[in-house]
């Protein structure tokens, strides 16, 4: 199981969670942040610092945002960013692409 970043992060991207994550598994796209599920250690440290309550444990993700479980996971797949599991976001830096569903998300 892993933690999941959901819709409230889109176009907010506060990044407080990035400082908090002990394993540096939160990666940055143009419109939102994504958690690498294989690198996440399930520690919960990111949840309390998110100013928009965008982060949930996978099994506690609200029904409306369940698709974000897949969106976070697919973000690292070959057909989206191809990042795989780089082992840390700091040396990767921000990516130029979002998950297609997020990229197409209507702005507020």
């Amino acid at each position, binding site marked *: *199981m*892993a933690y999941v970043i959901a*819709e409230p992060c889109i176009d907010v991207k506060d990044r407080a969670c990035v*400082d*908090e994550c*002990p*394993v*540096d598994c939160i990666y940055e796209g143009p419109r939102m942040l994504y958690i690498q*599920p*294989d*690198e*996440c*250690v*399930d*520690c*919960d*440290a990111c*949840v*309390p610092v998110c100013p928009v309550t965008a982060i949930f*444990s996978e*099994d*506690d993700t*609200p*029904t*409306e*945002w369940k698709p974000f479980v897949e969106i976070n996971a697919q973000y690292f797949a070959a057909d989206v960013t191809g990042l795989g599991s780089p*082992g*840390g976001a*700091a*040396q990767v830096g921000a990516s130029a692409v979002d998950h297609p569903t997020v990229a197409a*998300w*209507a*702005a*507020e």
Partner: protein
Amino acid sequence: MTDTAATRRTPRPRGEGQWALGYHEPLNAAEQIKKEAEPLDVRERIERIFAPGGFRTIGKQDLRSRMRWWGLYTQRRQNVPGERTGSAESEELEDEFFMMRIRIDGGRMSAQQLRAIAWASERYGRDLADITDRQNVQLHWIRIEDVPAIFERLESTGLTTTEACGDTPRVILGCPLAGVTTDEVLDATPEIRAIHERFIGTTEFSNLPRKYKTSISGCRVHCTNHELNDIAFVGVEHPELGPGYDLWVGGGLSTNPMFAVRLGAFVAPGNVADVWSGVTSLFREYGYRRSRNRARLKFLVKDWGAAKVREVLETEFLRARLPDGPAPAPSALSLRDHVGVHPQKDGRVCVGFAPRAGRIAGHQLRIVADLAESCGDGRVAATAQQKLVILDVDAARADELIGRLEALDLRARPDPFRKGMMACTGIEFCKLAIGETKGRAAWLTEELAARLPDFDEEIRIHVNGCPNSCTRFQVADIGLMSALQVRPDGTKSDAFLVHLGGTMGDGSAFGRKAKGVKIYAEHAADYIEELLRRYRSRRGPGDTFSTFVNGLDAEGLSRFALPSRGGPNRE
């Protein structure tokens, strides 16, 4: 922004699973398992099926949930790296050996009880024992086959593992010097005993929403850290009603740290067990049972506020008003412990001493029991700082005892680093851990004492293997929290995030994260040495490490905390 209504959805408000509001359907797996079978009943299966049949006969729900009600967790399989902590399946992460947590309410043990623990450690636990910062002793390497024999011996001395883990009322913290010290408001021992006898191991409180931590103490230095407990009774002198307790609720650290709040209510000593039962019932009925990470009492207290908690407690659970009462006087110590020689009311002394970050051997405990009998009346106590105290020592024999303890590497006159160092279990045995802690803390203790021989101030360094904060990194002078860091060659390395300047008491505040600082674990000694040298060269008169750090603004803290060029963490 374009106006495209209805693209953003707010999730429907969700119930929090509070029983009092009619939510009795389990909302998560842990609640489901508790509902399906009374967790305390696993004891019978342990003795009848699991111990005779071996590890493979243990059902998964019992193994991963209900056995905690008897103080048993599977330990982490050896050599599973920290990066696998979140993603590994349970089978990969759990070993066939158990951690066994022995609860010692109030911390007090007889020599006979300490020998029982030592026996279990030497015979079944590879001679390891950890004194925890909640006055428990944790054994490791326990096989299920040996559990009944250990239960039998422990229980024959009056010790127990009942509800040492799980969603239960955990060990009740008490001052290790209660009843003997010259420096207490009152002796809380009868209240601790009453609660243990009436409520621990009963089905009344065996299904709480989450763990529930209690402190009851009249100690003037607040050595049980009442601010960090779900419920705490803190000794105060009421101007009209005499000695009693100030009631606090809703403390806890972990990833969402909160200090407990006062309800402003005074509790007479004879009323403590009933009020404890009232607050515990309130938690059972109103506590959140949806998300495990929002289930501790602190979340309800934060949402309700102290006034509503007191109102509901008094009207629905106590059916009586509590008198208002005074706040406790703040502790005179920042390192709230009883290491060293302290006077007793009866003219004798007690001798507190420090193992290395809580780690001690079973055979050392056996010798400590012998020393406690030969130099005193056999009474020993664990502190909430991973230390031990021998009580009832003739003052004339204190030096002799201290010498004998030193010979065991147990220090009653420790250097500041031995005295202020704590470490959680860490990756050696803990399935939640990201990094190693006990060994690093012991190494840090030796390194810092050798490098900074003139450092003569108290300094609290708490080493944690994950953000759950079993050793309270947010209230340490220097809190280290395990992290992973990629090296230039692509391999992953143990590292630490750093929190600085945590304080409790007057002006209590959680330590601030040193932003952008992540040190490789092997550089921790270099880093802390550098920090302490900087502090010593810049501090003002009267400063302690935490007052100095808390006098820095954000930018100043950043400058203070960043490792120097060429220093730690620069490859």
